[in-house]
């Protein structure tokens, strides 16, 4: 198959040698701190960030490992965002179903309201804010992670900031 064709390496193959595993382990160890911070910023509170990273890594390993990726960090981050968004939808259904059979929870959140506002955003919006405001990535770099155009990345960042600012303003107005 020509290298320039779109190609999916089917998962589960090829078998990898112990040496390849050790190389990937070392590569992953170098990436892990950055991925952990990113996953923590992106995940819902009831999602374990390490679970998201592990699942993203599982998908990569099933397709031959980190060495096959040109931009492993961007790829893993992109997969983490998708996994977080998928989980959010699934957890949302469960929460709605539970809400119909359980009394509403009266406990106050144990984290500040700012964080509650942050958690109200979509995972992709939190990811954008993290990438832009904390990692200080350019629109082009954010676009690579989110698999969109730089213009779309800029728009998403602007909208995410606006949503968060609105939520914080409302919070302050209430207090």
């Amino acid at each position, binding site marked *: 198959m020509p290298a320039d064709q779109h190609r999916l390496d089917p998962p*589960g193959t090829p078998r990898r040698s112990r040496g390849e595993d050790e190389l990937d382990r070392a590569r992953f160890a170098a990436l892990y701190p950055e991925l952990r911070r990113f996953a923590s910023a992106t995940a819902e509170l009831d999602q*374990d960030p390490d679970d998201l*990273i592990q699942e993203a890594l599982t998908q990569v390993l099933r397709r031959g490992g980190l060495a096959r990726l040109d931009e492993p960090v961007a790829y893993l981050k992109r997969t983490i965002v998708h996994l977080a968004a998928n989980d959010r939808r699934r957890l949302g259904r469960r929460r709605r179903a539970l809400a119909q059979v359980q009394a509403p929870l009266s406990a106050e959140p144990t984290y500040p309201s700012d964080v509650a506002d942050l958690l109200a955003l979509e995972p992709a919006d939190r990811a954008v804010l993290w990438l832009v405001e904390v990692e200080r990535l350019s629109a082009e770099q954010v676009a690579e992670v989110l*698999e969109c155009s730089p213009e779309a990345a800029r728009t998403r960042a602007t909208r995410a900031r606006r949503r968060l600012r609105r939520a914080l303003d409302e919070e302050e107005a209430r207090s």
Partner: protein
Amino acid sequence: MTRLEDDFVVLDRAHDDAHGPARGADDVFDGATASVAARRRRARMLSAAGLVLVALAGGVALTSGGDGDDETQVDVGAASEGDGGDTDGAGPSDPQPTTTRAPTTVPAGEATRGQLVDVRISAQGGADQVVFQLVEGSDELVAAATVTPTAAPPTGECDPATVELDGAGFLAVRLPADTTADPEGVPPALAGPLAYDESRQITAVEITCAFEGVAVAAIGLVQPDAPFAVQRLSNPPRLLVEVYPR
């Protein structure tokens, strides 16, 4: 540190409170490799069980050949009732169509190259549904899709020729479409086995190959000889595959 960075730090601590401290790179890596091995084992077991069940049932799947990616197209004249382009626009909740176990082609149309942009799974009235959505303006391409029962997950023209996907049997879906451009072939949203919590008839769906304008997807079946139906939908152009219980 900005207020937002501060909030992210608090969010990180909230995650630690909820799930314990970060497990560390080695632990996560070991978990991922164990997960890969477990999925391999499960796929082997299901594949073996599926072959036995198919053999016992005298089903057609075994005749479709070895790796389940037989290029031979059986005459589709006996295909499901979907002989019709008149299913355009029909919704998933339409009356249950006649199902089949024969290789099925949506009725002919002019085929050029298109782009697969989304795959979705849902459940409706006892049937599981898989929707393959193509880019706007490529309605005719759906007409060239084929759906074929196979004993193993199909891999099209891609190497290696085997993939691991849970399922006692499989449907091979071929679409005249590329996936969106991506170094790994498919975007993460479409990569990896897609599953749906409420599925009863299918185990997972995976795009196993995208090569030279043909995308191949494997639908893993809970029952190896489950009947299925195919419909062509428009606005946006979609191929709907419904899998019913026996």
